[in-house]
């Protein structure tokens, strides 16, 4: 909860000295420029935020070499709007920024940053380190990785890459070394959604045009809490103020569901992992009542007959029993959706992070086709993007360790973290002996914390590149100090519906003289004997070449543009009329031939998810993101932690009463995977069979501010992945709680 929370009576009186979670007593970090010094340099430098992956445009105010303020960048659409005409119209009113973006200087100047390369002394995870030179670190890591390759073969290395412009050099390193096991973040994020949309409307990330819609039905997404792209609140609230109706499907009354209710919409508190059943029942009603878009279906889709046959038995009564909603509500929502246009149907990681995530998401995506609401103003828009092009050498021939493309037929290019983790434990399909983590807190980010630690304990060599001593860095043999986004280059093709790409540039040099991640990989590559491109190319030159290859402009030109943001062609609609959808059939696919070819159900039938409640563990456990924090990495940021310094365990009021739990009680959360204490937050804002919490708290490392605050959700999760996409099933779990 991002707010100071008071009871009604106290709230009225403002009597309780609630205040914010106190961090009083800490000295100022002294990030403000010395006012007495002569002002030698005072500039505003445009760059692109990376406090989360949202890449919002920002301006950094730098005075005498110190960053003293971050403000929104109105030349960059992220923070303004995701439709080109809205962006142009709203530009003058200024871009916006989230609280994390506002707190960037507190992480840049965090006294707890890693400042020098470290080499492990004593037992793994014991926290004893020797400070070593960068050259010694690179040399020793090269020798250790060389030994792994000589002894076990190159496939014994798995590399977990930060997903940015230097993703490609990390991939090149893996392929030069000879391992196919290059992985990155997406498979612990939203690849069920990607596979679902790719296999229906032929684009892996369509974006909703909230500002111009009249109806938005969103499943398991909280864009007003997990704000990510800073324009989301504006475009959603503008839509609502213009009369749009918002319906939010979520076991928790999220900040988005809260606004749905405030504006006369609906919160549909489903049981976790049942969203697909709801979507199929909505389709059932629409088809039974003849409300589908027959024109769109006839001209632009394929497989409608098979889909209609699938949903014929998926009645509202059937779905009511599964979801916990009532059948009449399902009918009403179906009718509203089919008759209020333009309409958005969208789904993100709530339904996606279950074992049935891809099919559930595909059922939801199918609704957009059923009502013909695709690539029109006010609907789901297929974005057109243009960005840098990175050269990557061919992958080595050997099989990947994580089953991408085999065990997981639609496994995303980012790989499958949980499979790589399991291979570290079981040695199957072959053993892993070394791992490199670049800005990844693997221990916290992959479901099943105990297994993650067990896995890392089985490795011979672990290297972590990070700004902070994360739980993963703590397990490493070598820790290389990483760079904050304000210290480094990058290029960000923006997630808006039109062409827009912005530059990230160092606004101050790396504070500790450390190398940027790209440079570390290049140095390591050269030390391993790789003398080809990109290992011998300086970072700026590499970026310039990649930008020119993909966009036809030079780095210097991008840098000189207003707000260091390049804007290309505007939003275009109904692109399928000229080029078809990006599916094999060029049609919107209710039935996927390529899924059938890979032995999967070609239509998105509902299957129950896994690891749900049992007699021993009767409550679902879910987790979510909030505006004040990113993943598990902002919990040492003093400003953000002042405002929300501990996650609470949300429990429905009636459930809490039956268990004798009161708001604020310390409770024990337990299942077969983990046991921990948390603070109860008793609320009417969560489904009675569900408990949950913000993801990313409960650290035992990361920094003194983070340590010991709140409860880690990942410890309670089995740690499997959706069998189609390889998406980690972060939200499949059940626990018992007691006071």
């Amino acid at each position, binding site marked *: 909860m991002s707010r100071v929370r008071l009871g009604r009576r106290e709230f009225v009186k403002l009597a309780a000295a609630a205040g914010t979670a106190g961090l009083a007593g800490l000295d100022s970090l002294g990030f403000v420029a010395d006012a007495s010094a002569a002002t030698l340099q005072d500039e505003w430098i445009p760059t692109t935020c990376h406090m989360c992956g949202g890449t919002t445009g920002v301006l950094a105010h730098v005075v005498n070499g110190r960053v003293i303020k971050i403000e929104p960048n109105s030349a960059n659409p992220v923070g303004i709007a995701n439709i080109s005409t809205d962006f142009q119209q709203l530009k003058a009113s200024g871009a916006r920024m989230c609280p994390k973006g506002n707190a960037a200087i507190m992480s840049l100047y965090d006294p707890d940053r890693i400042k020098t390369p470290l080499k492990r002394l004593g037992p793994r995870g014991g926290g004893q380190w020797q400070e070593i030179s960068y050259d010694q670190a690179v040399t020793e890591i090269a020798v250790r990785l060389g030994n792994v390759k000589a002894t076990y073969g190159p496939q014994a290395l798995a590399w977990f890459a930060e997903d940015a412009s230097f993703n490609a050099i990390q991939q090149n390193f893996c392929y030069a070394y000879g391992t196919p096991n290059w992985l990155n973040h997406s498979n612990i994020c939203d690849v069920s959604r990607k596979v679902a949309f790719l296999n229906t409307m032929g684009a892996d990330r369509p974006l909703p045009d909230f500002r111009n819609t009249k109806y938005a039905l969103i499943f398991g997404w909280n864009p007003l809490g997990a704000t990510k792209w*800073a324009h989301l609140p504006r475009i959603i609230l503008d839509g609502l103020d213009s009369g749009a109706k918002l319906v939010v499907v979520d076991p928790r009354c999220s900040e988005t569901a809260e606004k749905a209710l405030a504006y006369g919409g609906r919160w549909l508190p489903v049981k976790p992992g049942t969203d697909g059943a709801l979507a199929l029942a909505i389709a059932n009603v629409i088809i039974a009542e003849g409300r589908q878009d027959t024109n769109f279906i006839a001209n632009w889709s394929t497989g409608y007959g098979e889909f209609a046959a699938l949903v014929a038995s998926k009645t509202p009564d059937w779905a009511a029993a599964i979801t916990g909603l009532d059948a009449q509500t399902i009918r009403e929502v179906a009718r509203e959706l089919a008759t209020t246009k333009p309409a958005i149907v969208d789904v993100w990681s709530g339904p996606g992070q279950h074992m049935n995530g891809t099919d559930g998401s595909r059922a939801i995506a199918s609704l957009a086709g059923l009502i013909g609401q695709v690539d029109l103003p006010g609907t789901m828009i297929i974005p057109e993007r243009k960005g840098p092009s990175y050269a990557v050498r061919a992958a080595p021939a050997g099989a990947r360790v994580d089953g991408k493309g085999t065990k997981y037929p639609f496994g995303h290019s980012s790989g499958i973290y949980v499979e790589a983790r399991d291979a570290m434990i079981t040695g199957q399909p072959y053993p892993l002996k070394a791992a490199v983590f670049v800005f990844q807190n693997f221990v916290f980010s992959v479901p099943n914390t105990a297994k993650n630690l067990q896995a890392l304990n089985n490795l011979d060599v672990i290297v972590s590149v990070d700004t902070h001593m994360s739980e993963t860095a703590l397990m490493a043999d070598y820790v290389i100090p990483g760079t904050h986004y304000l210290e480094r280059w990058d290029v960000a093709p923006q997630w808006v519906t039109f062409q827009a790409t912005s530059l990230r540039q160092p606004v101050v040099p790396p504070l500790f003289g450390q190398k940027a991640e790209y440079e570390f990989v290049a140095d390591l590559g050269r030390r391993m004997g790789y003398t080809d491109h990109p290992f011998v190319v300086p970072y700026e030159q590499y970026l310039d070449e990649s930008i020119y290859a993909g966009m036809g402009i030079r780095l210097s030109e991008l840098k000189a543009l207003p707000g260091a943001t390049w804007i290309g062609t505007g939003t275009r609609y109904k692109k399928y009329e000229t080029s078809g959808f990006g599916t094999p059939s060029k049609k919107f696919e209710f039935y996927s031939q390529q899924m059938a070819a890979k032995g999967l159900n070609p239509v998105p039938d509902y299957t129950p998810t896994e690891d749900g409640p049992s007699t021993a563990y009767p409550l679902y456990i879910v987790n979510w993101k909030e505006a004040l924090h990113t993943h598990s990495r902002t919990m040492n940021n003093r400003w953000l932690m002042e405002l929300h310094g501990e996650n609470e365990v949300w429990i429905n009021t009636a459930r809490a009463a039956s268990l004798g739990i009161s708001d604020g009680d310390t409770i024990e959360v337990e299942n077969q995977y983990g046991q921990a204490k948390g603070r109860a937050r*008793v609320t009417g804002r969560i489904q009675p069979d569900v408990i949950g919490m913000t993801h990313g708290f409960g650290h035992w490392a990361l920094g003194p501010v983070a340590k010991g605050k709140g409860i880690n959700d990942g410890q309670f999760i089995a740690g499997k992945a959706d069998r189609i996409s390889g998406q980690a099933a972060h939200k499949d779990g059940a626990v018992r709680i007691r006071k």
Partner: protein
Amino acid sequence: MSGHASAASKMMFVDLKRCIGCNACSVACMQENNLQFGIAWNRVYGVEGDDYPKPDVRVLPMFCQHCSSAACKLTCDNLGYRAIVQRADGIVYVDQSRCVGCQKCVPVCPFKAMFFNTETNKAEKCHYCMHRIDAGLAPACVITCMGITREFASPSELLARHPHAAQMMRGNANALYENMGEKPMTERATAGNPGASECHW
């Protein structure tokens, strides 16, 4: 029209219905004003009912209301320090050079908007980013607000956009802010939030 607001002065219009409670305002203020750890001039309160499955959730971003007869200022004046000053444009600020750090102003604020800085040993609070206003800029909280919850504009501009704001301005001479102040919310028309009730603050 607000009693103290000159034609040139600007008011804060906060649409509670659009506030998502994200705290961007809080952190923007910390950045802009280099606040001591533990102090947030901008805070966001929330209140919610237990009425599942339709919980009544309200969000209230709270900061100094710049009251025209401010309790903090009256207290300070009565003690003879006169460290709390109201400008012609209505902004109430703590003159740091006059504050003696007696802290008597802190508990009297009905909005809990006055703070005591243990590094400077002086009282402090939101001063509407008057350094920015004097430079022609909007306050830091306004320019970051993702919900476009806060509007900072002249009374005439606000009236043009929100005709019903006339009642708020007429009804409360102290208000630089549409729907709260010293008086209970029930006494005000509440722009964009017809369902507001007294529990909102």
